[in-house]
């Protein structure tokens, strides 16, 4: 199983409500994935202030804040978020220098990522999701099939700057593609199949392709079941495998675009009664740019 929810706001008047809306969506897909939950929020300037980068890490030492006196360090369960007025690369280097054993699970100048194991409802409180603001967000509840229930295996996979990927399904040929990517110098954090999808997309984006093209290439290369929601610094995209094995539903209004595994996650959104609601077709990429 696994549950996916995502919200891309078009109406700035809704930005202050992003976290509350996303939390209510997340709580509707708890049964789809009770093992772990992750969240990504774009545009929350209290979590990632203007001119700052934010880096999310796992396995942070308890004294990380003392080791990084010039940074804003916030612990949220398994995840610790570090923000500082540096470039993304410089901040990642600084965090790794201060705490070499951490695993970086998210980074960007407009993005804050949280992931961890446990009950999704409790994790939403741990991440203080309700107070989040911003223009875009996504969340995932995990029912593990391909690898262990660990914070590393939790989604989203954020492996490029301001990028996130969440996955419902399982890739069949991920080991082959992981081997190929490793040969090209890509480094992996987990044995998770979805991470391979995220690394593949990140490598295509790094080569200058857009989200739409990267996901069409993913459909050609990956075998298995997938509904994917992928976000970047300016966009939001959905794609499903050739037989559309895993559920997905999209709703659009003038105020927002939302995607979820099930309708009930969309039922509380403002204006849902007038939304255009549809299911994405197999292997067709649906993308929205800010």
């Amino acid at each position, binding site marked *: 199983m696994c549950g996916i929810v995502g919200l891309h706001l078009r109406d700035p008047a809704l930005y202050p409500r992003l976290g509350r809306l996303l939390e209510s969506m997340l709580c*509707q897909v708890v049964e789809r994935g009770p093992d772990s939950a992750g969240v990504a929020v774009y545009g929350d300037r209290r979590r990632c202030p203007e001119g700052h980068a934010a880096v999310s890490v796992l396995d942070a030492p308890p004294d990380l804040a003392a080791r990084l006196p010039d940074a804003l360090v916030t612990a949220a369960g398994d995840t610790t978020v570090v923000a500082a007025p540096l470039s993304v690369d410089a901040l990642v280097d600084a965090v790794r220098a201060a705490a070499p054993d951490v695993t970086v699970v998210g980074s960007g100048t407009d993005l804050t990522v949280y992931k961890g194991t446990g009950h999704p409802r409790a994790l939403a409180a741990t991440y203080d999701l309700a107070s989040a603001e911003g223009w875009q967000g996504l969340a995932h509840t995990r029912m593990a099939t391909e690898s262990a229930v660990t914070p590393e295996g939790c989604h989203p996979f954020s492996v490029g700057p301001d990028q996130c990927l969440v996955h419902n399904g399982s890739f069949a040929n991920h080991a082959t593609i992981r081997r190929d990517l490793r040969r090209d110098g890509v480094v992996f954090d987990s044995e998770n199949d979805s991470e391979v999808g995220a690394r593949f997309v990140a490598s295509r984006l790094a080569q200058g392709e857009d989200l739409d093209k990267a996901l069409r290439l993913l459909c050609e290369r990956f075998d298995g079941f997938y509904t994917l929601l992928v976000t970047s610094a300016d966009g939001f995209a959905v794609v499903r495998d050739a037989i559309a094995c895993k559920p997905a539903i999209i709703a659009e209004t003038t105020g927002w675009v939302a995607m979820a595994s099930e309708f009930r996650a969309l039922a509380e959104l403002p204006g849902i009664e007038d939304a255009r609601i549809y299911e994405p077709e197999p292997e067709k990429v649906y993308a929205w740019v800010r």
Partner: protein
Amino acid sequence: MGALTVDLQASSVRELNAELHTPTATSYEVLDPKGAHAIAAGVHHPIDVQVRGHAGYYCAGMNDGGAITVHGSVGTGVAENMMSGTVRVRGDASQSAGATAHGGLLVIEGSASMRCGISMKGVDIVVGGDIGPMSAFMAQAGRLVVCGDAGDDLGDSIYEARIYVRGKVGSLGADCVEKPVRDEHRAELAELLAAAGLDHEPGEFRRFGSARRLYHFAAHNTY
């Protein structure tokens, strides 16, 4: 025996279904479903159920004799394994509508997504709009009427069900072929459209069914 209203924001689906399984009324209004799963599943009395809003997975599943209307859209598997009765969806249906259903009538006034009528075993399904790819996969018996278009791989590995499509067909699945529309087919179409309350001319539909080439092995083994 009168009418009862159940608000799903105040009662659980389990409580609703327990009431519908041993009904104390003849008709029910179900309010505020908000996409909950298994609404009115397992109804086996001739009761009338009106669901006011969108329903989730397996709505009206296993229906045996009930008349269930959803004034909204439904999730995966509406009326799956229905035995008899009527299920009407005023909006759209997600995947696998009417899956494995043995009897009764399923009407979807909007469109149905992929695998509509998968493994249908005798149900009649009438869709006012379009149906998605891989519909009527391994359909064994019953009739599927589509007033709009059908997606790719229609009727893949079909046995004996009859499919009628008024619009375009993306492509036909393995062993599904177009067949001539004769008077008896126009007559049954008129009957099904009337039962569904849809006003189309039976002469506008094409018929599809099994070429029956998959009934026997044809491997031509030489040893």
